[in-house]
């Protein structure tokens, strides 16, 4: 039996045809002393292909196991299903910070965290997150049209972190993976030590 309302078939032949929300949760991964977190198309229920025109990753309370200067939370993408995370990218990176003791505040470009046709991992934060129990980073990363084979793959991100020197630090990235190959995997990790705790949610935007 079909359910038809105002001339529109809503339920028929074992399927429901209704408009869904445009932000679709694809996968949520919780880190616990994890060396890295990866989302690979076709693995563990992950869809990272041409199904969606953009993908949004939300980072919730990313907490490191290791506290050291210049230890950053960063990411890279793969064009070979996660065998290699080394896609060439060019990007910009700027940050604003304010110290809890009111000793300094700033807004500036940071070339050491930017990429210039590099295959390194790109930092999503500025400076290093502390390992105090209440210190972490949160934010988002959006990647546009990763499965396209004509254009480079643009991304934008913004995070705020509780720096090891007790600085509230907001970091902005914009860039592109300079490849016309389809991107089909992404990996997040710290430059040293494990991801002690984090939730990373991956969404597809219809």
């Amino acid at each position, binding site marked *: 039996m079909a359910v038809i309302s105002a001339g529109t078939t809503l339920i028929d032949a074992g399927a429901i045809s209704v408009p869904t929300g445009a932000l679709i949760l694809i996968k949520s991964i919780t880190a616990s002393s994890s060396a890295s977190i990866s989302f690979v198309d076709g693995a563990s229920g992950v869809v990272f292909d041409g199904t969606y025109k953009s993908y949004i990753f939300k980072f919730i309370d990313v907490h490191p196991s290791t506290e050291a200067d210049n230890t950053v939370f960063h990411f890279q993408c793969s064009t070979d299903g996660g065998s290699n995370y080394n896609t060439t990218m060019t990007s910009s990176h700027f940050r604003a910070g304010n110290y809890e003791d009111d000793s300094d505040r700033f807004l500036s470009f940071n070339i050491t965290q*930017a990429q210039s046709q590099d295959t390194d991992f790109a930092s999503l934060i500025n400076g290093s997150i502390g390992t105090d129990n209440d210190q972490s980073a949160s934010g988002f990363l959006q990647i546009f049209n990763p499965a396209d084979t004509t254009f480079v793959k643009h991304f934008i991100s913004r995070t705020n972190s509780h720096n090891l020197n007790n600085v509230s630090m907001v970091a902005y990235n914009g860039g*592109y993976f300079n490849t016309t190959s389809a991107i089909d995997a992404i990996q997040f990790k710290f430059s040293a030590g494990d991801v002690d705790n984090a939730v990373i949610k991956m969404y597809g935007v219809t």
Partner: protein
Amino acid sequence: MAIISDGTTIADAASFSVSLGNMVLLNTATASNSASLSFNSTYITSTYPIYKFEFINIHPATNSAYFQVNLSIDNGSNYNVTKTTTYYHAYNNEAGDAYALNYDPARDLTQSTSYQDISYQTGNDNDQSTSGNLFLFDPSSTTFAKHFLININTYSDVSGTDYSINTYVGGYGNTTSAVNAINFKFSSGNIGSGQIKLYGIKGS
């Protein structure tokens, strides 16, 4: 025919009345050597308090053109709403020898009806484009100005050099009339290709 369960209307008037997410795709406009792309009062109404536009690989026909936006209060007859805005960007070239975070006073608007630049000199090589987002807040208000926020990234050609340019624009349409249409174009030449997706974000 409506479906009512325990006093709650589940389905009626060709729609389900259930929680289906708070961001709803309203329309997708695809450019194919198009002079501009527009969304009119069919989509921009009082239904949603926030509208989000996603730009997917906006590619110019003419090299180093600026992708632009303007608003209308007469359903697209005129795109000339007075605006005051800020425009700043972080850029880095592929050689890594030219980079900065700059406010660009040549790109902001001060009570101007001109189009607002979104990108900075988008290149027209086959792999060059602009992608990002624009949020338009409460366009149907007849009390407040109409705020908007833009963040995009561009693969730019600036005097023959390739840059990644991350642009931020904030501003308001300085009108208490309802905004009911929006237009996107390049400062020079057509939109060779690209998609703009329009979403409504529910307020409750």
